[in-house]
């Protein structure tokens, strides 16, 4: 009934002109968001002369794969990439190991001081890192933790938002199921890993993905919590490539190749799992 009513309304008010306008707007949005990526990827195959030419070149005469090798060497991808992979992977595991039990306690258990402790847990959602990095910098330098993998991992281990969302998922688990398992003689470990955990798995996977993304894309801590190159990650390397383009002979094609390699993992993951990734962000946006 509703649909028929809608359709008749739409048909009366929407002549061909509106349809064409709709297509034009769609095409405009499409170009607006695809063009920068297209241009970046295509530019990473250009020669130095083509990359500097005015008007810009949209299709290089020859595809130069060597640019990627140059970027790899120029930005020391072997080292920074290794740092990126090690730190991001460790962050996923430490973040889950820290968040899941904590969320379980807050979601399913009763204890004294629950409210104030939960307020402490959520405190990082209120306090942006740009306000507290300096005390941490001073603290870590006193402790001698600057330029260590541990400090880079530690900062991403705890995230108030992650705990908050996993806790919400735990709270939605039906209590009777757990009681039934306990009555059947299941120990607390079994209850947690065999009964509760599978029920909150989708949320946990989502949060793991977000933890990886946050760490992989991070640039701020790279700058503010390190004093040398030892544990800096890929975004810093791309920044170094970028700085080189301010010189007299900028090699934009190499910088573009570097940036392409930096975002390639995310881009490929997004192409194959865009539904899941989008849903993950919707979930974290709407509580």
């Amino acid at each position, binding site marked *: 009934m509703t649909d028929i009513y809608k359709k008749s309304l739409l048909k009366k008010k929407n002549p061909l002109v509106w349809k064409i306008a709709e297509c034009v707007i769609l095409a405009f949005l499409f170009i607006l968001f695809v063009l920068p990526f297209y241009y970046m990827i295509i530019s990473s195959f250009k020669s130095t002369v083509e990359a500097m030419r005015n008007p810009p070149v949209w299709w290089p005469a020859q595809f130069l794969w060597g640019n990627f090798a140059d970027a790899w060497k120029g930005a020391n991808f072997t080292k920074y990439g290794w740092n990126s992979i090690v730190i991001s992977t460790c962050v996923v595991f430490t973040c889950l190991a820290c968040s899941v039990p904590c969320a379980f306690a807050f979601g399913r258990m009763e204890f004294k001081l629950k409210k104030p402790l939960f307020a402490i847990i959520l405190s990082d959602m209120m306090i942006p890192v740009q306000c507290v990095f300096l005390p941490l910098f001073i603290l870590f330098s006193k402790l001698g933790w600057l330029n260590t993998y541990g400090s880079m991992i530690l900062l991403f281990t705890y995230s108030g938002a992650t705990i908050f969302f996993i806790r919400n998922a735990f709270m939605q688990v039906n209590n009777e199921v757990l009681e039934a398992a306990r009555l059947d003689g299941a120990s607390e470990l079994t209850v947690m890993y065999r009964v509760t955990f599978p029920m909150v798995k989708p949320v946990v996977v989502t949060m793991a993905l977000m933890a990886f993304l946050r760490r992989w894309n991070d640039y701020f801590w790279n700058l503010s919590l390190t004093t040398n190159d030892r544990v800096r990650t890929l975004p810093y390397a791309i920044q170094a490539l970028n700085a080189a383009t301010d010189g007299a002979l900028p090699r934009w094609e190499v910088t573009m190749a*570097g940036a392409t390699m930096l975002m390639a993992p995310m881009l490929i993951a997004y192409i194959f799992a865009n539904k899941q990734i989008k849903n993950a962000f919707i979930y974290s946006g709407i509580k």
Partner: protein
Amino acid sequence: MSTIDQIDFRTFRKLELKQHGRAYKILNGALKNPYVLIAPAVIIALGTTVFALIFCIAMSFMKWDLIWGTIEFVGFYNYKYIFTDTLFLTSLRNTIVFMVVAVFIGLALKVVVGVFLNKNKPGHNLVQTIMFTPYIIATVAIATIFRYMMQPTSGVFNLILSTLGLPTSDWYLGAQTALMSLAFITIWQGMGYGVLIVVSGLRSIPDYVYEAARLDKSSKPNTFFRITVPLLSPTLFYLLVTSSVAAFTTFDIVAMMTDGGPGTSTYMLAYYVYMQGIRFMHYGRAMAASVVLLLITASLSVANFALAGKKVHYQ
């Protein structure tokens, strides 16, 4: 499917068998104790946010002499200093201008595009999916692309402008246009996320509300402003708060593209704190500035939490 079940079953059996082991008993007892479960997170939270915050506030009233290693209480000296420092005032002004442009124009665009894309057609879905891509890409990579495309002499943006017969611009290299270029990139990058949230908000508005409006012969603009916007208000408010906090703490893109320049035209609060603290080692000033930054963002977050409890609208 079956293999996973078998593996699960095997680990389950192992756990059952080990039930009488000592390690298992200790672990099992620990898991029943909520304080053990929350300990790691609470300790890190105390260290990285609560301690850091108290330290930050305390230090903003101190003068820390790095050469002699002495710390003395100086009252509001640091605050007086930063509020007479033209660089700080410029960065405060820049941050507010940037925030207003990036957040309000950004939000209006997100709502308009969200309403436009709220149709379950292949074309609309494709555009929405593509639009979201920049949000999960590192800001460093995004800034790199735009640095290249915004080159004044050989950049794509000026080519497009001159082809359309419009005046060209210096983009991020011009003192007048640099801040707006950064705002443009920020809006561009956050667009897909905003649209995603707006569309899912729109889809959660039940059909019968619109049906009732139609039966009452409500006009389209009337329906939009009297029904869609109020029912969407929690979503919009969430977007407003998160994007204004993000705008106030903008750092990556400034450090990547302009280093606060040209001149001081893109110096922003977070960048000021970073430069004063890490580069110039003026800890007191930097912390006073970060307390100012914190007051702004924390009041926004408190408003969000307070209003999220009571819904912004009634349905």
